[in-house]
């Protein structure tokens, strides 16, 4: 049965492995190149917190962005491809070609056939996602000696930790169910792509509620100094301590800015701070990285299990 799984799905397995290998080479190459650049251009004591290191950090940032743009879409595209090429054909193609009537009338019962395929391919998908996460995690520190963005940037967040594996598994399960619903590969692929995009958007909106947001009050600035925090909401706090969304009776003149200038807004904010107003920010600090990773991975894994169960149920109920 394992041989059967391998033989029927080896194209996907090999292409995915080749893709990961290629990505590994690309990441390794860019990291080696960046390290040599640092060795050749860094002033003494850099990289580090010294002001003199700013130029170096900026140059690294540009190099990082060049590579990052190559796979900026990967958090979305990789799971979509996994779902479309690993999940959708698993049942969809069998039904489409009528080969389910061959596969499910051998001695191996349908339930076992499906269990082996789901566990072998699901396991491979999880391993692939973890490998991607590992490569990205090893690669990023080369560029980001100082500030990090693994938490605040949802794109990066979805490519490190355990999340890639959870996303890949979810897409695989979604594709499998779609294949059993449509009994065709192509519509199942379309549903996977749409489903992964919708889920990613939904979970991003939902992620604000993974934990009670931290609250801090700022004076003199409206910008949180932690660049990697996830902002949830903000409000003004009156000198009396009452929180308002929009301080209208503060007596500070508020004029609309023209063009790209924010001069008037800044003047208004300075006036508010001068009158004793504070700026309350609700946010999730980066220290919640693993809590958010496990929450998201948990949601995706449970959903995958439910989808897998649905696919099994549908298949066992009416195999023909």
């Amino acid at each position, binding site marked *: 049965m394992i041989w*059967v799984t391998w033989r029927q799905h080896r194209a996907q397995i090999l292409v995915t492995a080749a893709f990961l290998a290629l990505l590994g080479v690309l990441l390794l190459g860019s990291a080696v190149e960046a390290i040599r650049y640092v060795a050749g251009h860094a002033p003494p004591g850099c990289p580090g917190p010294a002001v003199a290191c700013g130029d170096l950090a900026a140059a690294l940032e540009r190099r990082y962005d060049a590579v990052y743009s190559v796979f900026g879409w990967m958090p979305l595209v990789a799971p979509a491809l996994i779902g479309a090429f690993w999940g959708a054909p698993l049942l969809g193609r069998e039904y489409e*070609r*009528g080969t389910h*009537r*061959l596969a499910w*009338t051998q*001695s191996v019962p349908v339930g076992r056939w499906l269990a082996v395929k789901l566990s072998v391919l699901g396991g491979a998908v999880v391993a692939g996602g973890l490998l991607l996460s590992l490569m990205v995690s090893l690669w990023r520190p080369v560029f980001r000696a100082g500030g990090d963005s693994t938490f605040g940037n949802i794109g990066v967040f979805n490519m490190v930790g355990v999340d890639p594996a959870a996303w890949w598994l979810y897409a695989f399960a979604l594709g499998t169910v779609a294949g059993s619903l449509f009994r065709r590969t192509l519509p199942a692929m379309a549903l996977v792509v749409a489903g992964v995009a919708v889920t990613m958007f939904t979970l991003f909106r939902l992620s604000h509620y993974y934990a009670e947001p931290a609250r801090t009050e700022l004076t003199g600035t409206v910008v949180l100094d932690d660049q990697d925090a996830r902002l949830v909401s903000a409000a003004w706090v009156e000198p009396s301590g009452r929180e308002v969304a929009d301080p209208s009776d503060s007596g500070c003149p508020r004029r609309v800015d023209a063009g790209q200038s924010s001069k008037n807004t800044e003047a208004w904010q300075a006036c508010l701070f001068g009158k004793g107003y504070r700026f309350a920010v609700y946010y999730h600090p980066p220290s919640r990285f693993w809590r958010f990773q496990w929450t998201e991975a948990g949601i995706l894994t449970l959903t995958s299990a439910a989808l897998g169960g649905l696919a099994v149920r549908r298949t066992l109920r009416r*195999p*023909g």
Partner: protein
Amino acid sequence: MSSALEVTGLGVRYRRTWVLRDCSLAVPAGRVAALVGPNGAGKTTLMHTAVGLVRPALGSVRVSGEAAFVAQDKPLYESLTVAEMLAFGRRMNRRWDGDAAAARLAGLSIPLRRKVGRLSGGQQAQVAVTLALASRPDLLVLDEPLANLDPLARHEVMRSIMAEVAERRLTVLLSSHVVSDLEETGDWLIVLNAGRLQVSGDIEELLDGHLVVTGPDEASTAGTQVVSASRTGGQVGMLVRGAPPLDPRWQARSPGLDELVMGYLRSPESAALPKLTGVGA
């Protein structure tokens, strides 16, 4: 006599439509049972139920031993080579006779290294039948094994299946909507019509137990059991069960298999089932 396939009170429905109702039959071991009926009669559904692809809403299906199935479109994995297809069969079955399968394909000059998708329709059918036979089944279920095959290929496929049947105790259930396909091969007849079972019995006994009688329109049918009748001009042709009618104006002769089948299909309310004919389990 033990039966290889036993169907009891079977009812199958897709959503609200019943495709099979109240079917009970038993095929004795070692028989070649021909399942006939018009398109949409439920032949494929009955076969799918027998091999576990369809779950019955009512009743049960029991196969003694292992069943192997070749579906109507003879599905195979087109991107696999013939040899890989055999490896698939070996890994998917408890019993597997790989040597016999390889010998059979060699005898048919089907190259093992060729991709299944590049074989001719007849060769694909032979590979599908070979896979089914190699799993050493007790019951071989073939859904329209001869459809889409040219006359030579039909003959070849049928001949090779019959050779296997002769060689060992194998029960075959095969369907067709062309009665003449089954004339020389079957020794058991099952007629399905609009989801209901009309006939199930030994072909010879069925033919012996029925008569085709022709006579004038006004002749009395007393003394016989009319299966169906058709009128042309002043003449009536009838298929009757048991003794001929008493009226001496009737002329009786033995029916052909197709006349028997057509006679029943023409009148769906008639039935010749084991309890009536006294044949069966």
